[in-house]
């Protein structure tokens, strides 16, 4: 008898904590490999104010992100953005291959690894947490419906 226990994802923070572990590992690798220019000296964002009062946060690659609207409309605190390792440090998975039962790469039914499972338009799909963690986002499609899987 299999005790079925599925948790509906309610909060983005669950995945974020595990993803944070990966992010810190990325930072650790950058530090140990000597890429000091890519690593922020502190996790909090560097904030720059533009000539018209725009609020920018600057990431470790030097890229400026305009967060004026986030601050004014949503109450974000610019300096509370953290890490800023740049937009290419964590690359998404795009258009992955989904395998069906019996196909090569399909896991045995008794495997217990963690997954995100979803059912849409009558089709069920699962994504292994270990595969998601290094990428944060999977861009794919259910039939013609474009979706982003994350956690």
């Amino acid at each position, binding site marked *: 008898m299999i005790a*079925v226990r599925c948790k509906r994802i309610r909060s983005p923070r669950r995945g974020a904590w595990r993803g944070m572990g990966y992010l810190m590992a990325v930072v650790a690798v950058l530090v140990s490999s000597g890429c000091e220019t890519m690593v922020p000296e502190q996790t909090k964002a560097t904030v720059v104010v533009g000539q018209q009062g725009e609020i920018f946060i600057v990431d470790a690659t030097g890229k400026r992100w*305009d967060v004026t609207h986030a601050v004014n409309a949503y109450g974000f605190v610019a300096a509370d953005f953290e890490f800023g390792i740049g937009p290419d440090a*964590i690359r998404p998975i795009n258009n992955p291959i989904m395998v*069906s039962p019996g196909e090569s790469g399909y896991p045995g039914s008794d495997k217990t690894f*963690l997954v995100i499972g979803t059912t849409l338009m009558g089709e069920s799909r*699962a994504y292994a947490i270990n595969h998601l963690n290094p990428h944060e986002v999977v861009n794919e499609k259910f039939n013609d419906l474009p979706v982003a899987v994350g956690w």
Partner: protein
Amino acid sequence: MYSRQVGGNKLILASSGWTYLRTFVLYDKQTESLWYHMPRTHGLTCIAGEYADSTLREFRSYFTRWIQWKAMHPDTKFMRYP
């Protein structure tokens, strides 16, 4: 899981490299707008950029183990990796 479609536009989402309150801040490659899951909401909200104030709706997803998911959905597909 979120829709990637705003109006007629299909976005490609990725991590911006930023977090806020320990939650990843996403961005879309098309406009570099920032997308964030605001607490106590469903879906992603565009907090800055061209799509400011737009939202991407959320679809239900489950955090579980393969053995349990497979038992409930025997025909389930699986993302091959790499």
